[in-house]
């Protein structure tokens, strides 16, 4: 095994030797420096082999041939190896990345860089406090030197501020070391740790306090970190990458960890609190940042805070500690370095200026990988780490820590994904795009980080106690589209459809009847919608990976057996659908809103599972039924709210209309017809396993009943007043999901059947309607219904689809919507609750209003002049609609085909209050329903009367719509004759008061408050070095008062 001293020797030695070359041979110096860094990396790499494959235990290396305390020892174990490797690799890659700047400043800068890397390695390796101090000093001085690499004038000032702070820090550290030496008679950390109980009394405790605060300050805790932000903002991005990954991420954090050996249990809570505070506050403040590098700085501080908080949980994490802390730390380091490197490609410093990346799919992929990693999304290490962390925290009731961590994570994801939205959607200024510096060596550095990111994702999957997510076939299938993205759309579309259908038939035997219904909708249903995608020409970059990721998530969701699989699937489908929604032309804010709500919901689900599991790993979904009181209702509450976020229950619905309406033509049916069902699936799993729960004497399913009814009522009511066809359909979905939720919350078998009826029907008719309306919008170039009209003759097939669709939605016999209503009436007869039904009664007829408006204002009424030559919607958009028409008719005649088996399957859960399926007639305890005779009777009557009319009216002459007399005059123009805008004006007068946007205002105010708070706190960082110094002192004093002084 190579001695650790060589790392220091190579670093320091080369740094001195470079001086011999002078500034005339910069190129050679540069090569030497790279060579030195590579050699150092090779050493660390050789250790990695020894500690992982050979599973060696850690090794102490003595510098002067004797053991401590008489000499300094360096320790190498798996942790040190990984961290050292991280530091050196970030140094090496940044050195490549900063080639221009290094060559410009000459050999001195290269020496300083080597010293910096060497010092960080030293901090990680040494076990001696004084040595630690020395390495820190080296790192500080090197930092100040490396800041000069930046073109930004403010870097100089930032360096000075850092030096001021460092003076204070050094003072504390030295004082601490002196006192500690006095108290323990050793400078060795492990030696001090052995004496820690005695040392932490009297003067020794102050000594420790000084040392600890000094080291902790290097980890930039909130609020004593203004100087760090100024560094991040003004330094060369290559250096910021090293600084964030190596200095803050690896070295300082590990130094804190070492000191905690001395501090012991007693100091863990301090680290926890400071870490959490930094994590939440930094992410909150980042919300109002507009400068990219400063934003990354905040994120960096937040991530280090999170690691500190994890460090404070050492006492409960046990053997998982390294897995969790390592997962978060490495994710942070790789992602942050990667993002800083990308920022170096871009000329301007506003977040919105990143839109210049839009033409670069590979860079966008890199960006997505990095922010996914930071946000703790699967399949990255931080996801596994956060999952384990949350499970452990919940099992020992550290719920407030859990809460703050999830809050901070949500804030972080919010601004990171907002940024992503800027990249894809904001205007590109042409000259900026030309200034994008795409030097190949920089790109290589970035893509090495991407490869490392995915490699770590794989590694953490292997290390985790669950299945490796990257090996799940649906996920692999989805990711493979990343590689196939160069192919034309029709090939990818065919592959996607074939894959989904094939997977369905392979997995078919493993589904139970309930799962089967969802699997059919998710996989086969998805394939039908994808038929419409054949219409799109070109390559459609990014569509298929996103869509397939969503479908992979949905597929895995149905198959999930334990809470981890379920949650991972949930996250996958959330991310996939977010990318899909974001593709819409104007969907930037809506997609973001969707993501924030979805992630918040997901975190609630995560906490619910964690609370339920109580440390049980793996926690199967069936075990939900064994969750004991008093926590059972809380678990229920968390999971239910999480799932209801996805079904857009009223109050949590504001993301839905924009997201569904602004999405692309074939995406709207996917996210509406299919994705919403994921929430219902979750609710079914929850209710089936946990049943009714009471919290403070209130039955939670009863509240759900009210929420379902309110959603049905208000969703329908809001749909009535929309002018935009797709928004109308989107609001209608809120109502429809309300019905389904209501059915489930009835907690009887008929209620569940009704919900399933809605699941199937809503998939069919909402997908169909979104496609029809999308097709019409494609042809007319508008979604405003009043600008259309009279299109029936031009687009008869679209009209038929909408006609069948609205008959089915409204529940008028003979189509399948009636079945849902019939089951509904039977279900409420069996229920003990009556008040919430009233709202459902009201909402039923309201549906007629918006449905009529949809068909009338688009297809009937007056045809506009500019639409007289319009064509039917494209074939590929019509085809799935016709399939749906057939399906609706079939489902209307033989609903038993889908429902009979589910009914039997549900029997054991509800003591057999189901339906009797007797030939054509379906009977319940209260009534009966025969779909086939209904269909026949109506058809015969209709046909007879039609024949009769044809007979008496055989000479009817066809005239155009405009051939009418209106108020005894010929009307002026079709535009003024089409009665369409504000169609239900009288209804608005009567009922409009009910749709005041209270919920939207509530959330807007909430977001406003967050931003205002962030903006106020942000002013704390004045940019003045003296202020920063005072803040640091105050911070130390406050901590002292709390922890030591009283």
């Amino acid at each position: 095994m190579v001695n650790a001293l060589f790392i220091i020797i190579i670093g320091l030695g080369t740094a001195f030797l470079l001086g011999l070359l002078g500034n005339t041979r910069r190129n050679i110096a540069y090569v030497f420096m790279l060579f030195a860094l590579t050699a150092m990396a090779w050493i660390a790499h050789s250790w990695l082999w020894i500690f992982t494959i050979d599973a060696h235990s850690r090794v102490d290396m003595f510098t002067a041939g004797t053991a401590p305390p008489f000499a300094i020892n360096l320790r190498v174990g798996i942790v040190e190896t990984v961290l050292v490797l991280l530091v050196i690799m970030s140094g090496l890659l940044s050195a490549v990345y900063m080639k221009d700047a290094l060559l410009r400043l000459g050999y001195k800068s290269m020496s300083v860089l080597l010293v910096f890397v060497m010092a960080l390695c030293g901090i990680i390796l040494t076990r001696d406090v004084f040595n630690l101090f020395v390495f820190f000093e080296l790192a500080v001085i090197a930092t100040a030197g490396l800041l000069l690499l930046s073109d930004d004038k403010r870097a100089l000032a930032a360096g000075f501020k850092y030096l001021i702070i460092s003076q204070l820090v050094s003072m504390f550290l030295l004082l601490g070391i002196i006192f500690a030496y006095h108290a323990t008679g050793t400078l060795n950390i492990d030696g001090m740790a052995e004496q820690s109980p005695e040392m932490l009394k009297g003067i020794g405790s102050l000594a420790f306090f000084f040392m600890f605060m000094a080291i902790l300050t290097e980890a930039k805790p909130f609020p004593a970190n203004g100087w760090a932000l100024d560094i991040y903002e003004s330094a060369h991005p290559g250096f910021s990458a090293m600084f964030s990954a190596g200095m803050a991420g690896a070295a300082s954090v590990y130094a804190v960890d070492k000191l905690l050996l001395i501090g012991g249990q007693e100091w863990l809570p301090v680290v926890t609190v400071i870490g959490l505070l930094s994590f939440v506050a930094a992410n909150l403040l980042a919300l109002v940042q507009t400068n990219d590098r400063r934003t990354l700085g905040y994120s960096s501080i937040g991530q280090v805070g999170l690691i500190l908080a994890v460090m404070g949980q050492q006492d409960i994490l046990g053997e998982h500690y390294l897995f969790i802390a390592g997962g978060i730390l490495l994710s942070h380091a790789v992602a942050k370095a990667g993002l800083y490197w990308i920022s170096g490609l871009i000329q301007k410093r506003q977040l919105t200026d990143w839109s210049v990346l839009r033409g670069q799919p590979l860079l966008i992929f890199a960006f997505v990988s990095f922010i996914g990693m930071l946000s703790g999304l699967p399949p990255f290490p931080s996801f596994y780490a956060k999952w384990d962390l949350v499970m452990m925290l919940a099992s020992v009731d550290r719920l407030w820590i859990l809460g703050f961590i999830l809050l901070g994570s949500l804030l972080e994801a919010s601004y990171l994904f907002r940024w992503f939205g800027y990249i894809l959607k904001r205007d590109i200024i042409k000259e900026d795009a030309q200034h994008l510096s795409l030097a190949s060596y920089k790109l290589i550095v970035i893509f090495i980080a991407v490869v490392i990111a995915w490699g770590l994702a794989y590694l953490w999957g292997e290390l985790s106690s669950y299945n490796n997510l990257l090996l799940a076939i649906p996920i692999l299938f989805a990711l493979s589209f990343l590689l196939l993205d160069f192919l034309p759309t029709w090939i990818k579309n065919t592959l996607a459809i074939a894959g989904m259908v094939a997977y369905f038939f392979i997995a078919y035997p493993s589904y139970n009847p309930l799962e089967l219904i969802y699997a059919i909708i998710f996989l086969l249903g998805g394939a039908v919608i994808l038929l419409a995608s054949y219409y799109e020409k070109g390559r459609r970059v990014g569509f298929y990976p996103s869509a397939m990721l969503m479908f992979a998530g949905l597929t895995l969701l149905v198959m999930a057996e334990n809470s981890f699989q379920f949650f991972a699937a949930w996250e996958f489908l959330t991310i996939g659908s977010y990318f899909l929604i974001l593709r819409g032309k104007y969907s930037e804010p809506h997609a973001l809103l969707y993501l924030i709500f979805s992630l918040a919901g997901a975190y609630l689900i995560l906490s619910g599972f964690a609370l339920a599991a109580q440390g049980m790993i793996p926690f199967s979904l069936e075990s939900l039924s064994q969750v004991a009181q008093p926590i059972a209702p809380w678990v229920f509450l968390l999971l239910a709210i999480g799932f209801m976020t996805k079904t857009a229950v009223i109050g949590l619905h504001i993301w839905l209309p924009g997201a569904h309406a602004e999405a692309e033509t074939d995406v709207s049916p996917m996210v509406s017809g299919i994705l919403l069902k994921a929430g219902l699936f979750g609710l079914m799993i929850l209710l089936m396993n946990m049943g009714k729960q009471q919290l403070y004497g209130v039955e939670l399913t009863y509240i759900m009943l009210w929420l379902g009814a309110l959603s049905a009522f208000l969703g329908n009511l809001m749909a009535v007043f929309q002018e935009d066809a797709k928004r109308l359909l989107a609001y209608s979905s809120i109502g429809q999901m309300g019905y389904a939720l209501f059915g489930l919350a009835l907690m009887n078998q008929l209620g569940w059947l009704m919900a399933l009826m809605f699941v199937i029907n809503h998939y069919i008719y909402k997908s169909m309607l979104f496609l029809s309306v999308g097709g019409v919008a494609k042809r007319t170039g508008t979604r405003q219904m009043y600008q259309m009209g009279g299109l029936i003759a031009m687009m008869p097939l679209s009209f038929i689809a909408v006609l069948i669709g609205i008959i089915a939605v409204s529940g008028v016999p003979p189509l399948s919507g009636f079945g849902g209503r019939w089951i509904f009436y039977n279900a409420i007869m069996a229920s003990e609750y009556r008040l919430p039904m009233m709202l459902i009664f009201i909402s039923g007829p309201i549906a007629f209003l918006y449905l009529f408006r949809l068909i009338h204002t688009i297809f009937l009424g007056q045809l506009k002049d500019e639409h007289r030559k319009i064509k039917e919607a494209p074939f590929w958009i019509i085809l799935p609609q016709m399939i749906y028409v057939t399906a609706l008719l079939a489902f209307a005649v033989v609903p038993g085909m889908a429902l009979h088996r589910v009914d039997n399957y549900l029997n054991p859960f509800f003591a057999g209050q189901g339906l009797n399926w007797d030939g054509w007639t379906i009977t319940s305890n209260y009534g009966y329903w025969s779909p086939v005779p209904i269909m026949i009777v109506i058809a015969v009557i209709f046909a007879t009367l039609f024949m009769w009319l044809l007979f008496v009216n055989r000479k009817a002459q066809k005239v155009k719509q405009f051939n009418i007399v209106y108020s005894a005059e010929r009307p002026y123009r079709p535009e003024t004759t089409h009665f369409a805008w504000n169609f239900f004006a009288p209804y608005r007068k009567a009922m409009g008061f009910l749709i005041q946007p209270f919920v939207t205002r509530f959330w807007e105010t909430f977001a406003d408050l967050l931003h205002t708070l962030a903006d106020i706190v942000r002013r704390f960082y004045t940019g003045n070095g003296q202020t920063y110094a005072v803040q640091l002192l105050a911070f130390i004093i406050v901590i002292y008062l709390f922890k030591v002084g009283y």
Partner: protein
Amino acid sequence: MQFEWIQIPYALLNLFIIINFGLLMNAFVAKIGARVGRRHGIPIYQNYLDLIKNYGLRSSITHGVMFYLGPVFRLSGGVGLLLFVPTIYGSDMFSNFSFSGDLILALYFIFFGTLGMALGAAESGHPHAAMGVSRGLSQVTMAELPLALAVFSIALQYQTLSVTEIVAAQQGGFLNWTLFTNPLAVAAAMLSFLGSVMRPPFDVVLAPQEIPIGPPTEYHSSYLALMQTNRVIYPIAKMVIFMSLFFGGATSWPVFFLKIFLIYMFAVFIGVVFPRFRVEQSIRWFLIWAVPLGILSVLLV
């Protein structure tokens, strides 16, 4: 109950009786209305003449497929509604096709004709038609609500959704009628009834003086004839439901004629006394007066 072919002629006979009764009753009611206004009124056979004349007219135009189908939808709705509910209790002859479905089928089938008619009228392109539909739909959403609540209430009361069984439960003396066993529900339903017969004060949908007859504006000749036929059948079909649910049903034709006439007269009386409401007024009226009754009836049953 199962389908037998003999039911088809029975159903046609039923239809024939109802049409004639309806034509006469409508004329009679028109005459009453005229007399209240100190006018002479139409002859009692006038509706026959109108119907024959309209079916016989040969000059006709069409605005398109939905326009053409609108009256067919409308009349199918009326006939279907009649035939899905047993007309005479205890009579196999006049039980119609009620084996297809229960009360819920009837309640939702009401909308079949309304929706089809609205679509047809909308294709005429006439703004008055669209305005009429807008008004009609707005009003009906609230007017139907008390009825739905009342139906729910009595379904709970009798623990069944079958019309036949509900009528059966009311036999044996008029005190067994829902009118006396569940007066709140009946009150709510009868108020709702006012909103669905297109008579004042809830006839703003047709509003002859502002939007000349609303939805049917562009309809003429045989289209209009179909709709007139429906105007005859549909209210009776609906009143059959009211009669069966609330007033003990009918065991014979004379009882049937009497009860239907009296139920209709309720709306007529109110219609000749009160002036017309605007749509938002009628919505509020139903919301304030009829809906609470319905809610109470559901809660108290």
